[in-house]
């Protein structure tokens, strides 16, 4: 995974609550066996009409938002299906950071496994930030300092230190867990005795 670097970008604002992963990437694009190439289908049904033509009014179809790296959204972003295709599509489009008052749990976790930073911030701040979207002005995300910089303001956001470290260092979770192999072996030894039906069933 790539290390997360600071971002400067004009944010794109989607003023809608409960944006589900079906909206982010509809099912017809889940037939792929690859992680890449989903960006063009991001928000497909909001972005393209029934003939596959771009819908002018949709924000991500217009410059400068078509190259936004930051997405502002309503609460409970990413609810519904567990499809990791949702963060893959965001990333492939170029979105590296989502800012919302809240997220669905599975989507939130999936972001960190793909180097996307999902920031949780008060609705009030979202309203301030969407002015920057409207005015096409750049805001800045500094992960190390856990802050959003806009105008002359600096707003701090909370983040689990372990998750922050993973993004900053681009860590491979599996590699780290495999280092705990001894603990896993010991656990399995223990349940082979205490719960013999779990691993071998005869």
């Amino acid at each position: 995974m790539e290390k997360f670097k600071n971002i400067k970008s004009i944010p794109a604002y989607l003023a809608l609550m409960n944006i589900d992963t079906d909206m982010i990437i509809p099912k017809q694009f889940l037939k792929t066996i690859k992680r890449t190439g989903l960006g063009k289908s991001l928000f497909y049904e909001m972005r393209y009409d029934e003939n596959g033509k771009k819908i002018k009014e949709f924000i991500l179809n217009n410059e400068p938002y078509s190259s936004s790296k930051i997405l502002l959204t309503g609460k409970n972003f990413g609810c519904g299906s567990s499809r990791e295709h949702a963060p893959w599509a965001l990333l492939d489009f170029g979105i590296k950071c989502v800012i919302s008052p809240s997220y669905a749990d599975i989507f939130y976790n999936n972001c960190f496994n793909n180097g996307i930073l999902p920031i949780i911030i008060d609705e009030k701040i979202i309203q301030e930030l969407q002015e920057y979207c409207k005015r096409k002005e750049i805001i800045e995300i500094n992960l190390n300092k856990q802050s959003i910089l806009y105008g002359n303001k600096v707003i701090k956001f909370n983040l689990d230190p372990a998750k922050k470290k993973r993004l900053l260092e681009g860590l491979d979770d599996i590699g780290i867990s495999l280092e705990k192999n001894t603990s896993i072996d010991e656990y399995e030894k223990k349940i082979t005795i205490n719960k013999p039906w779990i691993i071998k069933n005869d």
Partner: protein
Amino acid sequence: MSKTLYDKIWDDHLVHQQPDGTTLLYVDRHLIHEVTSPQAFESLKMNKRKVRRPELALAVPDHNVPTTDRSKGITDKESKLQVDTLRDNCKEFGIQLFDVNDKRQGIVHIIGPEQGFTQPGTVIVCGDSHTATHGAFGSLAFGIGTSEVEHVLATQTLIQKKSKNFRINVNGSLPAGVTAKDVILKIIGTIGTAGGTGYVIEFSGEVIRKLSVEQRMTVCNMTIEAGARAGLIAPDEKTFEYFKNRPMSPKKNNWEKALTYWKTLYSDDGSRFDKEINIEGKDIEPLVTWGTSPQDVSPITGRVPDPELETDKERKTAMYRSLKYMGLKPNMKISDIKIDTIFIGSCTNGRIEDLRVAAELLKGKKISKYVTAMVVPGSGLVKKQAENEGLDKIFIEAGFQWREPGCSMCLAMNDDKLKSKERCASTSNRNFEGRQGRGGRTHLVSPGMAVAAAIQGRLSDVREIN
């Protein structure tokens, strides 16, 4: 110290814990399907990693498979590639697969319990959010992303932080015509689609105790629609009875040992819940959804709500958008909403008991000439059982199509999908925009309510069907 059911299962699966609470949790059972696994296997191969415990995984194609005649294989190229890829990966890594034409093939969350692969007190994961279903047996079961699928394949563990405990008591008893589906829709309507975010929900109370295990699966299945990754119901005699003699259930001595352990799986008296609510069974009516979020519920006797009466601005905007998408007017009677399509199936309501309830109501009747209706059994074994009981004939004679098992129109990855503006009464779990096909309009209902809608050609009260 008193512990909740969730605390007990969590503590029993700790492999390693860091001071900040980051935990390596052991995974006892891993369910795999064709849509969310190919990238996990690909990455595993790229990094030259092995599958640690192939015997703890079970794979099945379900999301993408056609529900029509399968004898000639899958015609859609991309779907075929995904199903072929699953087969190749399972072969390469030694994972058991119920392939497309295996009689045990079916929706991953239906075949797990059916085979006894699902068991009380286990941690079960799958790259699918409706993994919550298995919580009905007192297992901690939740959906994961593809990177986590890879993590489980490689290590048989997951990195987790503990959720909070939430208990929902459904007290008393249910009025006639009200089912498990209405119970969970009521709960989602009450706490909202993000009401359970950050929690594991334990369902308890007299109503839950009285539900059959299959009905409990319907409740736990839709826990994710309330934002909670997992729902739990303490196992009881009904649960233990269910697992007797399932192909993958513990055998002989192990059965006795397992049973002793399973009987310890309940929340202790005095255990602490971070949140707790009560719902009275008598207050629940047959429900339908009117909007594009599972929290948009109304009694069948009600009316479409008026967004103008909503005080929250964001919610008001969402309601207007929903009504526009759904083609509905505020204040119209729910029972005046005409229906084009009926879908009975999915991991929510595709089990034998669901089909029995539907068939019983349908016996000797015909569906409206204005509707197209289909039944998609949840698994090959459910289908066979239904056919043994003659349920297929009841459905076919009434005008339903009788299909092959799979996820089908619940997410419309195969050919079973709605056309734009087509309106469906569906026993599935999500009424999101475009979920059942671009522009398609979904009303979530119980199997009985689906039958009522099929007969009347409009959303109708199951209590009026005799």
